[in-house]
């Protein structure tokens, strides 16, 4: 009995507008509870929604980047249900006519490429937060988040396994951050994911009953939750039982999914057109402007890095993979005339430091300006590559200015040929045995002399000059 997995993802992306979808409340994360709640967010009697145009622009950018159909006239529907963090008792969403339809995105996995189609992406407002564990016997409600604009992106059920699901989620995250429509901050809940999982027999064209896994916001948990669920459903079907169509929560501590306690009747949302919101129209002129100002996407950057700048493909892929990395590279390169060297350091030493500290580049103390300056000091021979490594460590820890560090620690490279020659002579004279061993064929000893000179100069000797001088003197 061979089973095939069918997965579809619904990703909720919090759009990075300053104010909410239908009110002037702030969307800023992390504020004290209930301080960013406007009268409209509260759903007080008599209040009315007014749409935030920027949210539409951001949604359209997504549509353009995924080559989707853009519905320039947007209408809104009400989704009716009761929950403490849903102030109006309904959510304003787009059921009948989403702003974006029928797009697609490429995902890369193990060297191969797959296209996942996107059924639709629509605008809707986020709910507030219910806090269940802080108060004895009570749940606290914080409405700060209520009304924040969301773009709900729904994929076709074309994903076949957990790894593909993660790759798809990552691809969406990369896209929305590059488009500057979402900050992609998973820890803050900027992106949340519902996963629909079902399994069917290989030779069947009929889809199996699906379970919906709600509100997962980490790559690791998506993978684990899906795998658990596939396992659970397989076991059920192999035992002759059936899968119940239901919503399940993923428990990360126990690594299992379990059914949410909700009645079936609760699912009739009674969608109908919101009578308070007349349709919002994006003009052709606005659409053209959005198109022209679309930020450069990862694929385009990668191509440009390879073709115009001459980076290796592997370097280009790494640097273009995250907006923060790409920004660091581009801004730092602007300050030097050796973009390739910037790339080499970024992919090498800087990435190593990121891994060591387990942070993202925009969480580090390294500024593009400082990084650019570091590379410049190498290309203008102020410091050697080796010294630069220790300078990098310093500015990485402390965020101090590159020139200040070089000055304070006296790291300026010794360039003066006459000084170097004197030191070289000194070293040669102090090590007659090694000199004769070298001249008799022990080529490896060349490194010894270099090392001695470096020791004398505390590593500040210009390596190339040292090499040239030694070669001359050791003949």
């Amino acid at each position, binding site marked *: 009995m061979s089973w095939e997995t069918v997965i579809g993802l619904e990703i909720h992306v919090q759009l990075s507008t300053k104010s909410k979808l239908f009110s002037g409340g702030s969307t800023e994360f992390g504020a004290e509870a209930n301080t960013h709640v406007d009268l409209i967010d509260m759903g007080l*009697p008599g209040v*009315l*929604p007014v749409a935030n145009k920027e949210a539409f622009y951001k949604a359209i950018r997504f549509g353009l980047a995924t080559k989707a159909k853009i519905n320039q006239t947007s209408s809104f529907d009400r989704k009716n249900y009761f929950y403490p963090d849903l*102030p*109006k008792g309904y959510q304003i969403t787009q059921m009948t006519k989403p702003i974006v339809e029928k797009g697609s995105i490429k995902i890369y996995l193990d060297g191969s490429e797959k296209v996942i189609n996107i059924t639709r992406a629509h605008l809707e407002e986020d709910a507030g937060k219910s806090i269940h564990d802080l108060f004895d016997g009570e749940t606290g409600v914080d409405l700060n988040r209520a009304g924040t604009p969301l773009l709900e992106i729904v994929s076709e059920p074309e994903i076949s396994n957990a790894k593909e699901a993660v790759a798809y989620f990552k691809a969406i995250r990369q896209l929305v951050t590059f488009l500057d429509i979402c900050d992609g901050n998973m820890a803050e809940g900027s992106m949340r994911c519902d996963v629909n999982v079902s399994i069917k027999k290989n030779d069947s064209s009929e889809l199996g009953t699906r379970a919906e896994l709600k509100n997962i916001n980490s790559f690791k948990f998506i993978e684990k939750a899906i795998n658990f669920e596939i396992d659970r459903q397989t076991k059920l079907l192999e035992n002759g039982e059936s899968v119940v169509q239901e919503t399940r929560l993923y428990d990360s501590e126990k690594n299992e999914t379990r059914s949410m306690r909700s009645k079936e009747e609760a699912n009739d949302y009674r969608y109908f057109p919101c*009578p308070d919101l007349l349709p919002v129209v994006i003009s052709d002129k606005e659409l053209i402007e959005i198109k022209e100002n679309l930020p450069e996407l990862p694929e385009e950057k990668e191509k440009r890095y390879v073709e115009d700048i001459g980076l290796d493909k592997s370097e280009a892929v790494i640097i273009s993979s995250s907006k923060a990395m790409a920004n660091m590279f581009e801004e730092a390169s602007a300050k030097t005339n050796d973009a390739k060297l910037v790339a080499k350091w970024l992919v090498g030493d800087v990435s190593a430091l990121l891994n060591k500290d387990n942070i993202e580049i925009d969480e580090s103390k390294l500024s593009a300006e400082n990084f650019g300056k570091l590379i410049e000091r190498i290309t203008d021979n102020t410091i050697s590559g080796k010294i630069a490594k220790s300078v990098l460590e310093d500015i990485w820890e402390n965020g101090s200015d590159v020139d200040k560090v070089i000055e304070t620690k006296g790291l300026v490279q010794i360039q003066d040929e006459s000084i170097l020659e004197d030191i070289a002579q000194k070293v040669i004279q102090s090590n007659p045995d090694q000199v004769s061993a070298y001249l008799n064929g022990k080529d490896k000893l060349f490194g010894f002399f270099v090392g001695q000179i470096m020791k004398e100069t505390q590593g500040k000797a210009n390596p190339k000059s040292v090499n040239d001088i030694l070669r001359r003197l050791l003949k």
Partner: protein
Amino acid sequence: MTIKYKSVKEFKEMISQKEISNKEIIQEVFNLIDDNKGLNAFITLNEENSIKKAEYFDNNPSELSLAGIPIAQKDLFCTKGLRTTCASNILNNFVPPYTATVIENLENAGCISVGKTNMDEFAMGSSNETSFFGNVHNPWGENLVPGGSSGGAAAAVAAGIVPAASGTDTGGSIRQPASLCGITGIKPTYGRISRWGMIAFASSLDQAGPMARTAEDCAILLNEMCSHDEKDTTSLDETVPNFQENLNKPLKGKKIGIVKDLDLSNLDNDVVEVFENSLKEFQSLGADLVDISLPNLALSVPTYYVVAPAECSSNLSRFDGVKFGRRSEHTKDLEELYVNTRSEGFGDEVKRRILIGSYVLSAGYYDAYYKKAQQVRRLIKNDFENAFSNVDVIMTPTTRGPAFEIGSKGNDPIQMYLEDLFTISANLAGLPALSLPNGFIDNKPIGLQIIGNFLDESSILNFAHMYQSETNWHMHTPEGIK
């Protein structure tokens, strides 16, 4: 009582001639309210603030168009710092942190909001018998209903306590009580008056409007009430004309549409006679009667009773006891909180409409009911568009008869719904419509409805004013008012 039954225009005259001080006016108003407590026209009074504002105007005479004029505000408008209940137990203790735009407009024009008037709960009703705070009594007869849902507002004006009041009209709630209480009231074009701060019943039908003794007074108030409001995207961005400008235009050659599909044979002979007499009056003023057809008019009541409950079932979901309003004391878990708060907080009519609304929107019924009603609604709107290509205004009786006894429509909701037979279609189409007194039946007033084309309040006010210049139905006052 010098102020009783005076119109807004007369009030302005009195104030500017200094015949009476602003403070004396307000004091008299509150005396009248107190003397006529039996009407139960008010839910909350605003005495202290009203006196303060009156004193201010006494010390600082003002050119504002409504300076010092006492106005009663329907308790459906949010008023900052002043309790706003919608005549419901669930908002029994609600004090809004903001004021509705229309009230702000009136107050910025100088009016003094003396109190919040009683109404049918959440504006659902045609007799003011569904209020949590008790029935309102018609000044024309103690056991008579004043009409609804703006029953308290109509009673306060009819009894001469205030010269004007704000009302709201979703299916006839300004016009029907105006007819049953012998006063004048107008529902403007949908979108003329901002709905910001108006507690929503049916968002695509609700509209505020003035209720007063004359069409001219209505025009004066309407000038101030209408505005484009950025906070309400359904608010019209059209220039607000001066509604007083064309009141005296001669009616010669104007055309009045008479709906030939309207079967008046069900009505009492008296009602038909009063209606036909009014038409004769307009003919003597020079207007012509033209037969028009509104073929889908008969479906306006069932259409309304799908659309309005659907919208209200959703609009009233926010009353859940979580963030504001009254919460039940029996709340052992979340489900109990919701069910008990709402069941204790809402009256029977509100519950009925919420249930109908949920039903017509639910999966499986949506197409047959809600979508269908929306489609018929468009047909009704189209009918009016066609009719108005031939006529300036359309006239019908406002109600099927004069005020009925409290409790007499008793147990049959549909009988109550049919009260709105003539008025509902204007809400469905978004058109302006007015009711003015045009006669008496068994010593009880009754009204004439004038419906206008989109944005054409001026024509209906013109017709009404010219009629009121030639007749005096609007000047009758009830006996038994202290």
